[in-house]
């Protein structure tokens, strides 16, 4: 499953990347400049989620022994809300509640959100649902996504429960899409299995930036965020920092690929992309989607 998802996203990326070389197909510089620009603009960056095409269903995979998953989900959600509220139609002051659904084992392993540790503007707007199992959690998530009075919905599910299969995730995506709401599903200690989430992230803690006042203290929170599958963005790796509610990026790990040998169009799909070389664990990404179900998209 994992391989398939990755392969899909990697091929889209490698198409964009490999369209670039001028020696390649036919038309030279124009194409390459366009492609590069397109690649640049399609790359994810904070503040990108537009209201019309914002990803309604996101998944964040994380270890239950660190807070990176919840923190990244929260940061992405706040980022999206911020972008939305800049729009002309949206309220400047969004005071809607947020829903946080956790299964019992997610609570046991990862703890509950703490009112004094949440961002101050959210701490009074939190509604928490403690669900027995994944099935109940999915029900609560779906109801939450259907509700117009939530700024966003966060779910925390541990492992790969049977209830959370492709059908369930597709159901969530469609509901979120039709109601225009945002869902951030944190998958603790889970394999990235088949899912219809629009953006799928891997989150891990990264050494924090230096604290301004105390060199020995943990500083600005940082996370390694890996976007390994997205419909409208090429995958990538980032180190994200949380500067008082604003996401900032430092040193994007994967640079725009330089000119490579020009393959012809037919071989692009089947060839292994340049990513294979840049990041060691992308080794499985070069496989083609030919003959695979489109459901995986």
């Amino acid at each position, binding site marked *: 499953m994992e391989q398939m998802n990755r392969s899909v996203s990697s091929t889209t990326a490698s198409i964009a990347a490999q369209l670039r070389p001028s020696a390649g197909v036919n038309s030279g510089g124009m194409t390459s400049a366009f492609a590069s620009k397109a690649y640049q603009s399609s790359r994810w960056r904070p503040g990108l989620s537009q209201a019309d095409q914002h990803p309604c269903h996101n998944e964040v995979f994380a270890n239950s022994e660190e807070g990176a998953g919840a923190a990244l989900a929260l940061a992405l959600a706040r980022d999206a809300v911020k972008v939305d509220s800049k729009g002309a139609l949206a309220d400047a002051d969004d005071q809607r509640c947020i829903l946080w659904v956790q299964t019992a084992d997610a609570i046991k392993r990862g703890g509950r959100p703490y009112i004094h540790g949440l961002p101050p503007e959210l701490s009074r707007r939190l509604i928490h649902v403690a669900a027995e199992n994944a099935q109940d959690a999915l029900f609560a998530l779906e109801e939450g996504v259907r509700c117009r009075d939530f700024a966003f919905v966060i779910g925390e599910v541990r492992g790969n429960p049977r209830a959370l299969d492709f059908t369930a995730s597709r159901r969530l995506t469609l509901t979120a899409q*039709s109601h225009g709401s945002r869902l951030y599903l944190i998958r603790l200690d889970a394999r990235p299995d088949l899912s219809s989430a629009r953006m799928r992230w891997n989150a891990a803690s990264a050494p924090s930036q230096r604290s301004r006042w105390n060199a020995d203290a943990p500083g600005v929170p940082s996370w390694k965020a890996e976007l390994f599958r997205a419909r409208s963005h090429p995958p990538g790796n980032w180190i994200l920092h949380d500067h008082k509610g604003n996401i900032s990026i430092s040193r994007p790990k994967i640079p725009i690929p330089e000119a490579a040998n020009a393959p012809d169009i037919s071989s692009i799909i089947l060839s292994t992309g340049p990513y294979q070389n840049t990041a060691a664990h992308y080794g499985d990404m070069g496989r083609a989607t030919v003959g695979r179900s489109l459901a995986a998209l």
Partner: protein
Amino acid sequence: MAIWAAQLSVDRWRLSKGLKRGEGVDAAPLALISETAHGPRLEAVNDAGRQAGLHSAMMLADARTLCPDLNVEPADPAGDLEALEKLTLWAQRWGPWSALDPSDGVIVDVTGTAHLFGGEDRLLNDVEQRFSARDIAVRTAIAPTAGAAWALAHYGANAAILSPAHDMAAQMASLPVAALRLDADVLTVLRRLGLKRLGDLTAVEQGRTRDRANIAPNGRDALQRRFRRKFTNGMKGRKSPAFNPLVRMDQLLGRVPEPLLPIVPHHMPLVQRRLAEPLRHRDLLDQVLHDLTHDMVRMLEGRGEGARRLDLGLWRVDGEVIIRSLEMAEANRDPAHIIRLFTGKLEDIDAGFGIESVRLRASWSEPLILEQNDIETASSKESEALGTSLAACIDRISVKLGQGSVTQPVPQASHLPERAHRWEPYGVQSMVTQTTYQEVLKPYKRPLKILDYQEKIHSLDESDGLLKRFQWRGRVHDVMRAEGPERIAPEWWRMRSTARLRDYYRIEDAEGRRYWIYREGELGDGRGGSPDWFIHGVFG
């Protein structure tokens, strides 16, 4: 006006048997008994029993020696109280409000209403007639104060009328002190003091005593001292007027006000269907529920209310009653929403031989103004596309997942991290009124998530009181950065004296995971051995 139904429980029993007074079983001595720690006790006795020398509060064994052919029936105090409530409401025909006087009396305010019945005599006449038509024996009295009316109804002449023109103290001097509605222990004390009638009490109060030898100029003070705390110490409800004859006397004479709690009828919206054929199938039950809900909604609409709690009772043919209750986050009158919530609750109903009667009751309703339907959201399909409201969403989740599953954190004034917040069941109301009037404690840098139970971590390397390397959940972490300690002392006013203080550190390990750990206690604080380390929260 006071009405005393002296034989209420016996009358009720007789009426339940459909007998006239002194007829059939009632002709023989009969007692209603209740079980006590010392054996069965007589609660009430009928007329024949009283003639045989029985009285209430007697033990059954004693009563049997007096009257060997005594019949007994169990008493029903709860039913009596219910009947009394109904009587009290019914008694509002004579006055604007009425109050319960447990266990067998009613007090009605008839100020300014007597002329409607043609004077106070005729009013009392009317009361007697109405009650005798219901076959309940009563004694009545009218007096300027509730206390005086009570005293006259219980101990005075029947249908006594005391008008404000009379000298109340003089008129009532011959009544026994029990007419003051006092506790039994206080009555014993008064009897031992030789104060048997109200006149005796007023005499002592005013400093007049029968023998001229010991004149106490301020007898009231002496009585006051006698019945102050010391005597009543350790008695339940010792501050109530039932423990102080002076207060009761003042209430009786109208020197101090005696507020009574009037009874106000509150009608719960209730709709029901009695079915010609017992229901055995779910789809028929759904149809009945649909009809009932629409009836209920119409009723609530007429009252301008919305339901907060609904009880659905299903009466089965074999006498079983199945009750399903529903509580909603906001007053609601939307039939589709209510049906949807109930549908989830009806899944495990066992119809048995069939359900013959279904009843829906709104046991908690709140005002909800009538609103015009939005034209755009008129059709349910479009409103579904717009999304549900917050209250509807919370209802659906809490009905499916259980009442306590939807919560919200509320800050609490404590510096102990786990007590600095609590989870309260979600309510729309509380959310609105949650604006705090007091500055909330703002602790320094708290973790994003906190563990329900602090987990012990194993220290592998510790120097200068700070952890350098530890093991948690089987994984070794190296502490690279740390900030602390933040010392949090135990709350000595509610914890044991052996509770140890905590030194909290914010740490970051080699891979950048940030934790909130603490050491419980210090070496040499005299509250245990070498301190342990715990993990309490996880930073984002």
